[in-house]
């Protein structure tokens, strides 16, 4: 692939990565650990919210994040014509 195009492709990839990793950090370390205590004041049925994020919520979001990444990258690969046949 020509250099300029590769730079563009890579920059977009990095943009996706940073966005997704920010969400990854916020749900696990943010909601599950640092803000767990204040969030525990909010209830989700029988769950305190901070506790829920630490034991359930962050795991669900991790799974979703990977599948979002896969979708984004598949269309980016097509756009720059670097996908595999």
């Amino acid at each position, binding site marked *: 692939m020509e250099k300029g195009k590769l730079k563009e492709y890579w920059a977009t990839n990095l943009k996706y990565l940073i966005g997704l990793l920010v969400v990854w950090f916020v749900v696990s370390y943010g909601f599950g650990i640092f803000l767990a205590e204040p969030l525990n004041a909010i209830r989700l049925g029988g769950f305190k919210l901070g506790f829920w994020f630490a034991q359930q919520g962050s795991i669900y979001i*991790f799974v979703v994040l*990977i599948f979002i990444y896969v979708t984004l990258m598949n269309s980016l690969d097509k756009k720059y014509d670097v996908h595999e046949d």
Partner: protein
Amino acid sequence: MDVQAWTYLIVGITFALYIGIAIWSRAGSTKEFYVAGAGVPPLANGMATAADWMSAASFISMAGLISFMGYDGSIYLMGWTGGYVLLALLLAPYLRKFGKFTVPDFVGDRYYSNAARTVAVICAIFVSFTYVAGQMRGVGVVFSRFLEVPINTGILIGMGIVFFYAVLGGMKGITYTQVAQYCVLIFAYMVPAIFISMQIAGTPVPQIGFGSEAVDGGGYLLDKLDGLHQELGFAAYTNGSKPMIDVFFITFALMVGTAGLPHVIVRFFTVPKVRDARVSAGWALLFIALLYTTAPAVATFARYNLIQTVSNTQYAELPNWFKTWEGTGLIAWMDKNSDGAVQYVKGDAFQGKPEFTGQTGELGQRMLANEPVADNANELYIDRDIMVLANPEIAKLPAWVIALVAAGGLAAALSTAAGLLLVISSSVAHDLIKKQFNPDISEKSEVLIARISVAVAIMIAGYFGINPPGFVAQVVAFAFGLAASSFFPVIILGIFYKRMNKEGAIAGMLAGIVFTAAYIIYFKFVNPAANTPDNWLFGISPEGIGTLGMLINFAVSLIVSKITPAPPEDIQELVDSLRYPKGAGEASSH
């Protein structure tokens, strides 16, 4: 049929299945032996990765640990799943594009250095052996409880099974066996969890059940559990008691360690395309999440059930499971106040693990030789592992469910052991012998050497299973700490920082490992008495220190690479080509 017969039947059927698969999928070439011919469909690879990753510890011990730790148990839940996001986004697709067989292979080629390759080989072998010893022990424990054979016989049977499919089938055999093992272990985990959720919370979905209202009334289950905990002197179940900084550092070390473990990384070399590597990380986490979101529910149910059943109950009125498990030494009761009832509150009932005198007390309890701890009223000793293994009996489930749990525990332990043994054998045969001592070796001899090294590795693993070094439990922190502080930064920088050179990589790996290993060795082996929060650096426990080791590795790598020459032109081109998927097929042919 009784439990014993069911267990023989179900374990026998699953073992026959694994062996059948191994014969069907035996490996011919090195490529089949190391990476299953790079032809595994992503969904199957996801299942195999999940089985590979979920060990005896995940299956047998994790729910029990969470059950006693409450909120603090989240370090395992988030730590051991969050690493897959890092794997999927930062490692898997690029390593698949690179397309070699092992992690040391990547390190050696990217950093154009056999010294770097050797450091990576040593880390890979050390991490894998640390892990596999624990797995063999897990196999022995499950066998001895459910088949009523001595632990050592159980380990020998386990060695025989793994020997058969790892030596014969290599990665190809292991992969398809692991797919079957995933199905067995997840079924075995979910069935009792669903039954117990219906009994306690009135819903078949455990993930919802532990946040529901208790069937026996009195409000939400978690609130009742918090209340019981406070009554008995424990920290509230949903708040935990670890300091926040330590929770943060341990969770991070487990996440980064997961992403750096060689037996997990190597699974992403086995799919046909870069696109498949990305999505198979997603499938892997989905399959893992099924168990990992059930575990905290099992933990809550088991904790609630335990306290309700035993607390202030007359020994004579205790259910049968209590006495069965008393027989295995995983639970023990010392009637300190001689009232014939079980007092369960915060604190150790007595010093050390139970040592039975062989006599029984007037109520039929096994008498203990241990020194009682006088400053608390607690009378109960419970091993954490009991929570998953005894659960079906506690919930009065039919005999076949109990047998199923035995088969599931064995599947979890055997699949992880096989994956680790393959990493050891490919590190020896490929990275040491082929790449460093004898590059002209024929493919046939290389496969033979790989088979022999699996066989030797099984012997060593079995030896450690039968004669467990006292420190097996402690060294798990080692495996994660080392993976976090050595592999992770070196691979990340190799992909995302083109200017990173061999000087930086080697200096960084050494700094990270030496710091992390020294810290853990000091607090775990040299001076265990000093292993208290007051003496820790910034309040970080040895379990969490890998995070700091990783930061040190990053810092040293960056500084050293700045003051040393840039890597050669062809390496910079290699890094460019890692960054887009096209052409992965070519890169993987050798």
